[in-house]
C-alpha cells in the first residue's frame, strides 16, 4: 500500500479524528499533512477505544468482516467507510468517560505524525 494518502482518505481521517477528539482539535486545518503514520497511530488509538465502546467495536468488525480486526493496517482498508459510518447518526456511542480518557492518552502520538 502506498505511503501517500488520497485526498478522500485525508478527509476521512480528518472526520475520524474530529469524532474522536471533538471539533476543538480543528484537525481539518492539518489534513494536508496527513500520512500513513497518522493512519497507523489513529488505528492504535482506535484499537484501545473500541474496548470502551461496543458500538464502535461492532462497526469495525462489521466493516472489516471481522477478519482484519487487530491486524495492523485494518483502518486504512476501511477508512472511508468507517468515517462515513461515524458521521452518520446511526452509530450511538456509550462509554463517554472511557472514550475521553483513552482518546486523550493517545492524542500526542497521533498529532506527532503531522508535526
Amino acid at each position: 500500500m502506498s505511503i501517500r494518502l488520497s485526498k478522500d482518505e485525508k478527509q476521512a481521517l480528518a472526520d475520524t479524528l474530529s469524532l474522536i477528539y471533538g471539533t476543538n482539535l480543528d484537525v481539518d486545518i492539518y489534513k494536508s499533512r496527513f500520512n500513513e503514520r497518522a493512519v497507523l497511530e489513529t488505528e492504535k488509538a482506535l484499537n484501545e477505544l473500541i474496548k470502551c465502546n461496543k458500538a464502535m467495536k461492532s462497526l469495525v468488525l462489521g466493516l472489516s468482516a471481522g477478519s482484519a480486526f487487530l491486524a495492523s493496517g485494518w483502518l486504512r482498508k476501511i477508512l472511508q467507510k468507517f468515517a462515513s459510518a461515524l458521521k452518520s447518526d446511526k452509530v450511538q456511542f456509550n462509554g463517554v468517560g472511557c472514550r475521553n480518557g483513552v482518546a486523550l492518552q493517545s492524542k500526542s502520538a497521533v498529532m506527532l505524525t503531522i508535526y
Partner: protein
Amino acid sequence: MLAPYVKDRVNVMQQYSQAEKLFATTVLLFTTLLQTACASGLERYSLSKQSGIDFVELSNSVHAIKIPTNQLTNAKIISLDGLMVLFSQEKHLSFSVSSRESFGVPDMQFLLSNIPEYLIGKKPLPEQQAEAYRIFYEDLALTRKVLIEDMVTPIKIGYFVIPDGKIYIAIGKKQAVIFVYTSEFPDIISQLSVHGLSVKEIESMILQGYVQ
C-alpha cells in the same frame, strides 16, 4: 431512655478495666486508620527536591506543569486543544483538561477527585443507587481497565500533595498518566499523558516541578 441492646453494651463495657478499654480503643483506632489507608490504595510518592534546576512553566489554561529548561532544547510545544510537548519522535506528552461532562458525571454532588483515586488508587466509589450512577460507574470501571491496566500498565503509582490539591501518578514502562486536581477548579481534572519516558525521566522532567 436507652434501648435494651445499648444498655447491654454499656453493662459489658463497665465490666472491663480502664487499661482494657484503652487497649480496645487503640486497636479500634489503628484498624480504622489502616482501613482508611488501604481504601485510598495510594501512597505518597517519594521524591526529593533537587536544587539548582531552572524550569519553564507550561499551562493548559487551568493547570500547569514545570519542565526543566534544558529538557526543552529542540522540543516542539504545541497548543492544540490543550498542550503538547514533543521532545522527540518517541518521547512526548499531552496535557489536556477534562470536565464533568467529559467523564459523564451524572450530577454536581460527585467530587471529581474520586475519579483518579478510583482509577489509580482503586479507592471504592461512593455508594449510589441512581441508574445514572450505575452507568457512570460501569464506564469508570472500563476506563480503569483500558486506560490504566491495558495502556499504562503501572509499575509505579502514588500521589503528591500540591497547593490546593493533589496529583495522581501511574507510570508504566512505555506510558504514564498523571491527573491533576485542585479545589480551585472543582469541575476540571487535567490529564497528563506521557509516552516514551522512563520512571527516572518522568521524575526528573515532570514530577520535580511539583515537588514542594
